[in-house]
């Protein structure tokens, strides 16, 4: 049984279906990347899995159907999303952003987790009292990732974490995502335009075009494919 199974997914906004027939799978412990150009349906895929938009077809997570679940039920089930453009709570302090991430939890280990993620992201600890909106883009992306992790997800959805960030910072973030996967077994579904970096940390890759998966395979297979390399990697 795969951790996440998406089949014949249709989703969109109002009468317009952006995704027409989307199928993909994420196994436990994998990093999977979805590559595609602007408007191909990457963000829509993420929002459909998170329950933020109307959808039909079938989405199964850890054996349970979440096709009709509300966003809060999906977070409780163990999926956390880092939205595109970071989506922090700009008026709230860094610490409150992280605490909001633990909203669905009722256990008494929230303070421990907070301390833990401040270890992983020491720059956030320095700024824990600061308003998130006053942080740099890279720091805000860290806030968004740490916030998502505060819900103790089994699967992390990352929507274009590299958007608007300097290459060095993107590299640092991808390093963190890779180590979360390696050390804690966190499964990650990553959406990216920055194919080079994403394919380095991903085990498998899906290519999406106008709402459909048009190719899939391991990172090595796809980067060896000439036409794909030209279209997505640019060399």
């Amino acid at each position: 049984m795969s951790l996440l199974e998406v089949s014949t997914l249709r989703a969109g906004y109002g009468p317009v279906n952006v995704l027409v027939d989307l199928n993909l799978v994420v196994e436990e412990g994998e990093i999977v990347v979805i590559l595609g150009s602007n408007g191909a349906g990457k963000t829509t895929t993420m929002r459909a899995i998170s329950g933020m938009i109307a959808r039909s077809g079938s989405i199964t997570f850890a054996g349970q159907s979440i096709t009709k679940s509300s966003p809060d039920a999906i977070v409780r089930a163990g999926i956390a999303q880092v939205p595109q453009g970071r989506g922090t709570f700009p008026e709230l302090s860094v610490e409150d952003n992280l605490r909001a991430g633990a909203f669905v939890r009722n256990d008494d280990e929230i303070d421990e987790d907070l301390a833990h993620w401040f270890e992983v992201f020491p720059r956030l600890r320095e700024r824990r009292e600061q308003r998130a909106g006053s942080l740099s883009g890279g720091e805000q992306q860290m806030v968004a990732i740490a916030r998502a992790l505060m819900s103790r997800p089994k699967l992390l959805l990352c929507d274009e974490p590299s958007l608007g960030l300097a290459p060095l910072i993107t590299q640092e973030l991808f390093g963190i995502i890779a180590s979360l996967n390696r050390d804690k077994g966190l499964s990650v579904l990553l959406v990216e335009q920055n194919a080079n970096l994403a394919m380095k940390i991903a085990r498998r890759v899906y290519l999406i075009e106008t709402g459909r998966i048009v190719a899939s395979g391991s990172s090595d297979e796809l980067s060896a494919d000439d036409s794909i390399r030209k279209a997505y990697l640019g060399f």
Partner: protein
Amino acid sequence: MERFLQYLFDGLSIGSVYALLALGLVIIYRGTGHLNFAQGEMALFCTYVVYQLGEWGIPIGFALVIGVAVGFALGAVVEVTLVRPISKKSPFAVFIVTIGLFQGLNWLDGAIWGDQILPNSAVSKQANFPTLFPSKDTDFVTILGAAWRLKYLGVLVLVLVLTAVLFFVFNKTKLGLAMRAVASNPESAKLVGIRTNRVLMFSWGLAAAIGALGGVVFAGINNSVNLGLMFTVFIYSSAAATLGGFDSPGGAVIGGLAIGVIENMGAGYFPEWIGQELKLGVALFVIVVVLLVKPSGLFGTAKVERV
């Protein structure tokens, strides 16, 4: 000095009522981004309910709890049935809806209780609108020669306590965190598992409940309730929220107290120039000046965002 203190005390007490209504305006504005034009009329309906309960012999403490609960239910129902479906279609239309609600509720009050000052000896058993605090002519404290009637002072104390409680809820509880998260970024609030619809329903309920409290204590100060009771209060509260900053609960309270004091000082020190007739002009003048000089209000936040 006595005169100054007298105006100050009166201003702070009346200002407390403005602060309550302004708090309601701010809670709704932060939650859903709307100016609730019906805030005063929702409070007025609850005030009439408390009057009616008094007629039925229910003591004020208990009647107030029921009135506030009616306010909460009214606010929550308005959010779910009117504001939510309409704001999906057009956010601006919600403003028009609240104006309609303003009219409709006032009409409803008139249809039930009539266009008269209540209580009055012709129809009421009660002599005065019930108040929580000692209200005989002899119930006052004297501070440096100025008298502060206990029923006025009580309102101020009530508002300060309520503000402290709300401050605690907003900043120290999970519910408060959810409310602040929804106000800051509703999309992300959903993504972390906050049921934003419930939070918004609760926000409207809370705002109307606080407003109901404001209406009841104001009718207590005023000794009576009538159809026009809350209209000017609403204007003053809007001025208070503008002055304090429409997204700042603390600012709403300070703004309310300040408007109360400014209004009373203006009317007291310039009886011929401003007087009782032009008091409302003071509030409107404050709105215009604040909007010109510091549109976000004294404690409001101008949006800061780095990308």
